[in-house]
């Protein structure tokens, strides 16, 4: 059985040498989705020891390539030893992140969900989740902080939910007067909460309460413009 033994970190994650950070992150998540213990696609294919080694290799590759300093040093090593030609790295940095690009495939959703599950156990995330759950009202900022702690981009939320980046930004910024109608807003919040693996009912209720309080404080409920 072939393993990753003779592969460099780019080959392990199956990304080009000039891959952007978001591509590396996506590739890492995809790899985890395939090689983790619960994966159906590789069920029983590897011994526990083999799987452990494969996962370790994926972690090391990701840890190196996602860190700019480590990646630069690693690239220099690859070039110095003649494993990768310098030209392969050249476009690095010049490629722009395609904003809100549509990458919504089932595999994106699955791998993101596995990534979130994996990270949900870290102390920082747990703390943020507990803070949200312990409060009656919820600000968009708390959702934003949780999203950022997971390392999820708005474009990734868009790719799965098709909620536009602008709407998500307004939700996160508590721009209550510019939000979509409540029936949509509820659905948006639910989808968003599901991605972050946090009780969606609590999120919807908390956010609506926070919105109601804001309106009460401002004295009057302004009618929404028709368009």
């Amino acid at each position: 059985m072939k393993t990753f033994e003779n592969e460099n970190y780019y080959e392990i994650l199956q990304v080009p040498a000039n891959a952007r950070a978001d591509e590396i992150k996506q590739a890492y998540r995809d790899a985890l989705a395939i090689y983790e213990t619960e994966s159906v696609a590789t069920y029983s294919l590897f011994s526990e020891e083999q799987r452990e080694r494969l996962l370790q290799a994926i972690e090391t590759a990701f840890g190196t390539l996602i860190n700019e300093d480590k990646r630069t040093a690693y690239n220099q090593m690859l070039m110095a030893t003649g494993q990768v030609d310098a030209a392969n790295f050249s476009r690095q940095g010049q490629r722009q992140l395609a904003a809100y690009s549509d990458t919504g495939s089932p595999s994106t959703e699955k791998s993101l969900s596995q990534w979130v599950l994996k990270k949900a156990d870290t102390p920082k995330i747990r703390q943020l989740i507990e803070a949200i759950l312990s409060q009656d009202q919820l600000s968009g900022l708390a959702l934003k902080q949780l999203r950022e702690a997971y390392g999820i981009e708005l474009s990734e939320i868009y790719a799965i939910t098709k909620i536009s980046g602008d709407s998500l930004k307004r939700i996160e910024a508590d721009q209550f007067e510019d939000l979509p109608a409540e029936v949509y807003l509820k659905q948006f919040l639910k989808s968003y909460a599901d991605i972050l693996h946090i009780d969606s009912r609590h999120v919807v209720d908390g956010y609506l309460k926070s919105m109601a309080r804001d309106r009460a404080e401002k004295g009057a409920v302004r009618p929404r413009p028709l368009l």
Partner: protein
Amino acid sequence: MPKIYPIGGGKGGVGKSFVAASLGAMIAQHGKTVALLDLDLGASNLHTFLGMSAPKDGLNLFLNKTAQNLERVAVPTPVTNLFLISSSTCSMEIANLFYAQKIKLINAVKKLPFDYVLIDLGAGTNFNTLDFFLTSSKGIFVCTPEPTSIENAFRFIKAVYLRKIKQLIRQHDFDARVNAAILDTDSSAVKSQDLLDMVSKDDPEKASLLKAHIGRFQFKLILNQFRRSADTSLGNKIEAVCNRHFYSPFEFLGQVAFDERVIDSIYARKLYITAYPATITAMDLKQIAELLANPQPAPSLRQQAP
């Protein structure tokens, strides 16, 4: 020589016979002559999937030398161009086929005067099943998206590899240590990959010989009984994993949607795709049949990569 597609997969009840009958009928509808060969010895019932009663004669006449040629025992089916070679009339002890009979049968299969031969195999990884699977390099694995089925499919792939490697090691002059390892009666202790790794270390030249032979396999995968809740990228993932970790190329042919009416069609003694041609399941099967009938399919017919 016909195009031969053995259909196996390790686990029972995943729909190997259903897939064989459906694909055979659909390829025949493309105007090719197709022989369905039921080699689920001792448990053969491919005729039932075709909506036929058990043929009076079949493989038994070939094995007892009443029929000189294997094609003589092929009987027509309700589908034009589709013929069945049944083993349902064979002796109750047919599952334990003699070695010489097996070789004779395999050689006869390779000479069948049809465009396509689809071989329906039984569950498990006994030597007969593995050898029938190795009749061609283009074996098809059928499994369902459940872990138990995938586990058996991987085991089947590894068993096929091991069987082939053992054949090769016997045919070529190998290191005494390798010979000792494979001739060890406790063969379950030797995994094909371990053998390859062992040969790689001791004798790189022989290892490349093995890898070259193994590399000629072009195994294919079908995910059957696919329910809506299953991961739609599973087939592509398994294909990618197999291509990355085994020594031969794999192709995911597609998934076939689960349909309760498959059972209804069996009760009604009708070929499913005839009884229910306008279903998602039938469409899925049609796409796969087209991939097999046209070796260079249009890109639109291929599964989208994730």
